């Protein structure tokens, strides 16, 4: 079964160059090339989208829908469009296809029947852009609450404390008389009340619509079971304030006794409209904001964004790719991040299984050493903000030490390369082996995790699961190999795969991936030595307001939690302010949750916490 999934999906399937041609011959009046400057892929007539999508999936073998997102072209084309990036799990580049709709009564047929992984992404587009998806069984808001007025990602929507369309704000310089935003009226002139608003009769519909969507409510008929007992289904809210949810995440669970009938993830409690902030920001401004997505692995987030924007910049004339040393340092950071993340993920999976903080702390103690290194190099332990377009912030320091104004100057003073060598050759492998000894054979862990939270390979692909969740189900899909970036092609490592698709395999795959990361890092060390003293920047220095040519790009990296993608569109006037027109984050934690409901069905309520822990979500990224 699994071999079949890894092999090219359709026999004799075409390579990506011919795909557009194939689609155009098959659907001559529905498929057109996207001829806009800097754009790629095809534009599909929205009325025939489902038909074409089925052909894309079944005939061309693009069985993995990575990203589906909306763009509002207000003032440019006065239309909205959905942009889809589909991939083959056998590797290779994307097939980008788009469907356009007018802004009024925006409507695009749902692709949930073709790729069930479109579920949350379409709900997000409905929530933030107001595009309706006929055919979606559960079309309701996902990040904002039910009853929220407006669709915040639309270009004409203004947020609280709205000041100006684009940064940098004019009020800051040269006449920057500081004031606190809170001193102003939160909404200023930016208030729209619904026409039928009656403040005295304000009711909150958000919860009732959630429960009615689950087919529950007062009118559920108690059904007598086989022994004649009248039983009723019970709704239990796990979270949002529950320590097992890794933040503010909520699962509304319908229980039949102790068995789960239905599980509905409810999220958005940490929503801050990261993407809207990102579109107000200039290109550079977004870099530190990406740290705050998946804050356990900020270095990888940085890399994804840097690569997406570098792809856009490569469309222009004056672009030089990052130097070799910059790429080496990037991979060093990203692989260290992967180890850090998996140490954390395994620790907290064990927390969820009831091993309260003992395994976590063993991982965290090791993580601390890597964070010390990050702090010495980038200046911050977690909010690294290290990558730049075309390079990195600064080269590695000679020594990891402080000459700071605090106590204990001489305590931590290491030669950087020696520290790294010890870390990679000695201390990290030791910590991984210790985890292995500590946990892998433990009968309690096996009893709690083996066979629990099963996700078969075909479902993992269908639900657009990514990262350890996908590979734990037997799909050897890793962006580092499927669509290589940076210097990964020249590095020797294996894509870790496990075939059982349960929690135990997701735990094992994290151990495997850490070992592979150590293997990569061991190859990085000689490269670091060899490139010592070389430039870390292709240009002179990072530019504070980089010029980004018009176009679109989708940069994706294999984040520790799965495939992290950034879809960016630049529409900037080359002389005007340089801000992204669209900045979308394909968050692995968010999309992996699509599979949570199906995985939990039929399991016991105590297992839900463990299943969630095995997905390894970070709410900063889920809710954005």
């Amino acid at each position, binding site marked *: 079964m699994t071999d079949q999934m890894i092999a090219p999906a359709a026999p004799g399937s075409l390579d990506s160059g011919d795909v557009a041609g194939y689609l155009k011959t098959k659907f001559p009046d529905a498929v057109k090339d996207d001829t806009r400057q800097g754009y790629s892929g095809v534009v599909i007539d929205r009325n025939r989208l489902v038909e074409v999508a089925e052909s894309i999936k079944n005939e061309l073998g693009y069985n993995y829908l990575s990203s589906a997102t909306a763009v509002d072209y207000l003032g440019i084309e006065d239309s909205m469009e959905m942009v889809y990036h589909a991939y083959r799990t056998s590797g290779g580049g994307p097939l980008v296809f788009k469907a356009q709709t007018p802004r009024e009564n925006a409507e695009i047929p749902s692709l949930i029947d073709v790729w069930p992984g479109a579920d949350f992404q379409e709900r997000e587009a409905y929530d933030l852009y107001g595009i309706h998806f006929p055919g979606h069984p559960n079309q309701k808001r996902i990040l904002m609450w039910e009853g929220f007025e407006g669709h915040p990602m639309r270009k004409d929507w203004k947020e609280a404390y709205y000041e100006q369309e684009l940064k940098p704000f004019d009020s*800051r310089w040269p006449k920057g008389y500081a004031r606190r935003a809170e001193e102003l009226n939160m909404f200023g002139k930016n208030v729209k009340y619904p026409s039928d608003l009656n403040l005295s009769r304000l009711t909150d519909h958000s919860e009732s619509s959630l429960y009615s969507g689950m087919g529950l409510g007062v009118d559920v008929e108690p059904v007598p079971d086989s022994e004649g007992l009248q039983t009723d289904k019970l709704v239990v809210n796990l979270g949002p304030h529950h320590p097992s949810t890794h933040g503010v995440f909520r699962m509304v669970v319908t229980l039949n006794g102790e068995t789960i009938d239905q599980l509905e993830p409810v999220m958005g409690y940490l929503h801050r409209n990261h993407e809207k902030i990102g579109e107000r920001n200039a290109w550079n401004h977004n870099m530190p904001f990406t740290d705050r997505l998946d804050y356990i692995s900020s270095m990888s987030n940085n890399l994804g964004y840097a690569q997406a924007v570098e792809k856009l910049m490569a469309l222009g004339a004056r672009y030089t790719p990052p130097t070799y040393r910059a790429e080496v340092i990037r991979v060093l950071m990203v692989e260290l991040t992967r180890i850090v993340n998996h140490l954390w993920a395994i620790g907290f999976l064990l927390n969820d299984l009831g091993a309260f903080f003992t395994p976590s702390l063993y991982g965290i103690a090791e993580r601390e050493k890597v964070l010390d290194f990050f702090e010495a190099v980038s*200046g911050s332990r977690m909010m690294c903000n290290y990558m730049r377009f075309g390079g990195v912030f600064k080269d590695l320091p000679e020594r990891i030490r402080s000459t700071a*104004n605090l*106590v204990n100057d001489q305590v931590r003073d290491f030669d950087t390369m020696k520290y790294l060598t010890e870390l990679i050759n000695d201390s990290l492998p030791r910590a991984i082996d*210790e985890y292995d000894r500590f946990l892998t054979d433990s*009968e309690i862990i096996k009893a709690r995790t083996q066979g629990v939270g099963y996700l078969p390979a075909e479902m993992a692909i269908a639900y657009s699961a990514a990262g350890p969740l996908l590979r734990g189900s037997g799909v050897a899909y890793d962006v580092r190999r499927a669509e290589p970036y940076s210097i990964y092609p020249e590095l020797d490592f294996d894509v870790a795969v496990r075939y059982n698709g349960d929690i135990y395999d997701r735990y094992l795959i994290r151990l495997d991936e850490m070992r592979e990361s150590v293997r990569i890092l061991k190859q990085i060390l000689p490269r670091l030595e060899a490139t010592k003293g070389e430039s870390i920047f292709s240009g002179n220095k990072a530019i504070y307001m980089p010029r980004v040519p018009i176009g679109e790009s989708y940069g994706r990296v294999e984040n520790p939690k799965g495939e992290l993608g950034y879809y960016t569109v630049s529409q900037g006037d080359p002389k005007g302010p340089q801000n992204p027109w669209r900045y979308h984050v394909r968050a692995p934690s968010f999309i992996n949750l699509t599979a949570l409901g199906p995985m939990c069905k039929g399991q016991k309520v105590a297992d839900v916490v463990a299943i969630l822990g095995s997905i390894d979500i970070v709410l900063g990224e889920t809710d954005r």
Partner: protein
Amino acid sequence: MYGLGILKGLGVTIRHFFESYIEDIRYAGSKLTPTQKFEKRQGTDAVGIYTVQYPEEKIAVPERFRFVPFLVVEDDDHPDRPGHDWCTSCGICAKVCPPQCIWIVRSEDPVSKRPVPEPEAFFIDIDICMNCGFCAEFCPFDAIKMDHDYELADYDRTGTHIYDKEKLSKPFSFWRKIAPTTAWEEAVDRKSWEHTDVVKAKQKTGAPISVPGGLNDPYQPPIVPKKEEPVAAAPSAAGEAVAEAVPAAAAAPSEEDLAKEERRKKREAALARKAAEKAASEGN
């Protein structure tokens, strides 16, 4: 055998359990001060997890550590322009600031209304600052730098969290103290320890310029402390000052005030001297 896996795992736990006491046993009878003990336990040969008892003990932050920015001003004993801002109010930091927490009022010549390269006012809203370090990275004059002071907690959020120029300004020698390597690298890039404007002025008059590592260099390149050196002999005045301040925390504010007062006097004296020189030269 069933249960063997658990026993193997518990072996790991028990090793960690004992390891956490090894340091206690090792230094049980020693006469080390708490600070010295802390250094041993945070050193490379320490075993087990040793918790840092913040705020009594603190791990020193590395040089590149970044927290809320500060503005570089000339030292109070600077021969040409004591206490003068390095900032030219070009506004790049305000533009590149992702959360837009920097507010700058550019000075204007009262007569000609032309901009003067000096900020009239400079504010940073530290509640909004996300400590990304872009301002320091992109400042063309090395005039704004990231501070290492992370203890900014305060009882009044509304009144005190917009730092003004007075609160933000710190002398250049402070920057050299907290980040000697970076300051050295920057000086090499500028080709002088002085501010770019001072260098230009000196080039016009032909006055000698202090080139880092050159003949007129008043400062040494950053010394990499050697591991063999005994800790007590470390020449870091800053470390000692804070180490002393830990037990005598109550006395610390007054010392700070004294130092401030002294700095103010120095600055005034230098300014007076300069004015006198100017008057003398005009008289001639």
